[in-house]
């Protein structure tokens, strides 16, 4: 499916040939191998990382409404990336270096904004969830303002680059992006499941977790670093893709409960599936053009969020 229709049998044939390193250069081969396959894999990886980090954030902050984009990580990452597009875009000679710099900018931006939000929300009495969300909104507002400022002073081409990037798009997938994302995914998916028990303990509250022998401060720092890494890189490579990190852990919790030993891997799988489906829909829904993926996840995610709010209302 897509702008160019390729039958399934032919796709399988091309992929099988590619695995055997036996492909002849042709238009179809290049559409499958250089455009669609990396895009599908990138969607799977980004979806998995965002969903699993959403689950981690919700556990860490003991708030089922926490999400990387709500607490400002994504905003900071987007400012970092925009700064790089605007100020370092001209210096770049090779596309390879340009890609890494945007990733670096997004990563640094994500780390800084995470730290700011966390610091603001943490006092000697612990981390206040309300303060955290408000600080996240403030950071998001600052990030939005800086982005607007940058856009205002940009020429048309950079402006389009920034705004397309902010809509969240997997369209620019290539094997380099896939490798970076795969590296980050491997780090996260290896390190995070080991924290599942501690996250379960943390749901009781921080002092309760300490009484259970969990080194809360170390784990907080570790998880915040990993979240900044994962979200920063995801945002750099795929732009702002909202709500995967919010809705997937919620759906999984409804199905199998809040135990992180099951929640983390299941969220990764479901997040990968959702983003792949959303991206496929985005690609074919307005043929021959395509929609940015971020628009579609928000369109799917926002109504779900509203339903959650309405259902939670009864519990307060």
């Amino acid at each position, binding site marked *: 499916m897509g702008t160019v229709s390729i039958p399934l049998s032919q796709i399988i044939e091309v992929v099988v040939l590619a695995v055997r390193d036996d492909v002849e250069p042709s238009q179809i081969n290049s559409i499958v191998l250089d455009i669609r396959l990396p895009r599908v894999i990138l969607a799977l990886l980004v979806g998995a990382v965002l969903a699993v980090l959403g689950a981690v954030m919700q556990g860490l902050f003991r708030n089922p409404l926490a999400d990387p984009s709500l607490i400002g990580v994504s905003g900071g990452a987007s400012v970092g990336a925009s700064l790089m597009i605007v100020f370092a875009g001209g210096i770049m000679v090779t596309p390879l270096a340009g890609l890494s710099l945007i990733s670096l900018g997004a990563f640094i931006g994500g780390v800084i904004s995470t730290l700011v939000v966390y610091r603001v929300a943490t006092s000697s009495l612990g981390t206040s969830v309300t303060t955290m969300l408000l600080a996240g909104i403030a950071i998001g507002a600052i990030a939005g303002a800086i982005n607007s400022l940058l856009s205002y002073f940009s020429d048309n081409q950079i402006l389009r680059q920034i705004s397309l990037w902010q809509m969240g798009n997997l369209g620019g997938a290539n094997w380099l992006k896939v490798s970076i994302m795969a590296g980050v995914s491997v780090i996260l998916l290896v390190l995070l499941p080991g924290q599942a*028990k501690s996250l379960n303990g943390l749901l*009781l509250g921080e002092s*309760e977790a300490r009484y259970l*022998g969990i080194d809360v401060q170390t784990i907080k720092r570790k998880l915040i670093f990993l979240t900044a890494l994962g979200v920063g890189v995801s945002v750099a490579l795929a732009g702002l893709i909202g709500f995967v990190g919010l809705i997937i852990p919620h759906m999984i*919790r409804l199905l199998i409960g809040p*135990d992180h030993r099951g929640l983390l891997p299941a969220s990764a799988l479901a997040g990968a599936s959702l983003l792949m489906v959303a991206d496929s829909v985005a690609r074919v829904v307005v043929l021959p053009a395509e929609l940015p993926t971020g628009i579609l996840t928000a369109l799917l995610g926002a109504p779900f969020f509203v339903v959650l709010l309405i259902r939670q209302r009864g519990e307060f």
Partner: protein
Amino acid sequence: MSIVAKNISLHLAGFDLLRHIDLSVEAGQVTVLVGPNGAGKSSLLKVLTGEINPSQGSVYLNQLELSQWDIQQKANVLAVLPQHSELNFPFTASEVVELGCIPHMSGYAKDQKITADALQMVDASYLQRRLYTQMSGGEKQRVQLARVLAQVWSPSCFGDQFLVLDEPTAAFDLAHQQMTLDIVRQFSARGIGVLMVLHDLNLAARCADNLVVVNGGVLEAWGSPEKVLTEQLISKVFEVQATITRHPVTDTPLVIT
């Protein structure tokens, strides 16, 4: 062995919350803290369990200073039930109690057995598969109590164990208050040291080996309930006129106001 506080003081935000307190909580005994609101009972518990460092003085758990303990080993000998719980994720009761098994991790089958036994002990077996978020206040508190019981259910190789409960009976009906006293008695008979805060002086009189009265950040009195509970003390500390008599069944002091 014991938890020993040596000359501890606590100053926070310009307030003297605790002043020069010496206290010893012995294994195999029940120590009960009583005192008016804001007397410093919870602060004292937090200092004795290492949640807050004292401004002066030190606390020793089984003769090793609290800050010297490895956090995981400490969790094997010291289980603490706070006054309030923040848990708002839909764990089942069994899953909550299993969290208490994190420090010792005795293996899946044994942890399951401990979880089931602890739930039964607090009269919450029927809650096993129910979601924590949908329980009543008293049910939640019983499940949390089961969780800390599970934490020190079996003896530990790291020394004598202690159970610290901050107002465990606050949300309980009469039957479950009684049940809590029985549990506390059973655990102290196993050699576990129990330290708890209670508001009901008659409950305290019925289960305490050592009754400690905290008032204005200092220890006002301590010792056996018979010795400590006098009309004079109650009038001084709680500013209430009371009559002390004997409980007709248990023969412990009975405070009538």
